[in-house]
């Protein structure tokens, strides 16, 4: 069943994430490299959940749905949330 495969993929991704997260310092990995790797894995996991568990893959227009429900709200709010970074 496809859901079992998704569960396995999520579990493997989580294990990789925890290994990288707890050993990055010992491997001499920089904070930003660690951030990019971990965030990429998180986006991969989130995409699996949205596509398969939330059945978006089987909706008539999956791309529009993702853009309307996740893309547009984040495009509007994320710049506001990240505002403090750009102030000296």
């Amino acid at each position, binding site marked *: 069943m496809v*859901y*079992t495969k*998704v*569960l396995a993929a*999520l*579990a493997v991704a*989580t294990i990789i*994430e*925890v290994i*990288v*997260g*707890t050993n990055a310092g010992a491997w001499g990995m920089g*904070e*930003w490299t*660690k*951030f990019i790797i*971990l*965030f990429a*894995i*998180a986006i991969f*996991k*989130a995409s699996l*959940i*949205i596509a*398969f*568990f*939330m*059945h978006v893959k089987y*909706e*008539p227009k999956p791309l529009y*749905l993702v853009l*309307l*429900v*996740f893309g*547009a*709200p*984040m495009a*509007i*709010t*994320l710049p*506001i*949330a*990240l*505002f*403090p*970074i*750009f*102030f*000296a």
Partner: protein
Amino acid sequence: MSDDHVSLGAFFMGISLFLLGGGIKELVVKDGNTTLGFGLLGLWIVSFVVFAFMQIRARVSSDKPDNEGVTSNLPKNTWMWLFLSSEVVFFTMLIGLSFALRLTVDPKFGLTGIGAGWLGHVHDSLNLKYDGWVGNDNFAPEDLDIILTTVNTFLLIISSYTMVIAVEHAHKGEGRKASIFLLITAGIGATFLGIQISEYIALFNEGFDPSAGLFGATFFLQTGFHGAHVLVGILLLILMAIKGFMGGFDKPGNNDVEIVGLYWHFVDLVWVVLFTLVYLL
């Protein structure tokens, strides 16, 4: 369902929300009565369950389909997706702002020169105490129990899996099987919440609380709001399971479980992001 049920339900929901507001006020306000706060929250849960149970019984006992008299050209689950998009706004602000603050004050990321001045200025102008990222109590991400939280992450992923199976059974009209998997999902969710509460208690005992610097504040804000969403999800799952055991999903094509499922997967989704940004970085 007759009309008088609807107005009575709205009345109960109003009282229920009043209890929720009163409970949160007592817990949040300085010198608030914590016992009264938790008592009111408990009453909120009880009244919420009673109200929802009344609605479910009215619907299950009715011969008419749930969407009787409702005509719509909108795609499936439109209103649930709309609600979830508002949740996306909420959690993007919460997590995004917390991470932005971290980038500007946590020395690890090397952006401190940019934001510390800005944040310090805000604190000075508001006459607030500014303790920096870890605060006087030195509460940092390194103090969190990664192993325990990894177990929690696996619990939520597995609960999403059992939720999907419940949705499959509900679509096929196998109400009893759907209900059993809904209860399993609720049980895993409750275990998650129990582990999170034990984590909070352990942190409080070490003196780490929301006032312990910016990390403490953002940590409890983000995980606390996520935990509250899990609690609501567990209530919804239990109510759906009751509806299933009462025969509510015995006809194929019922969409209720799928809608609750969307909410539950969204809560799982938020945890995936939180686990990475709060615990692992």
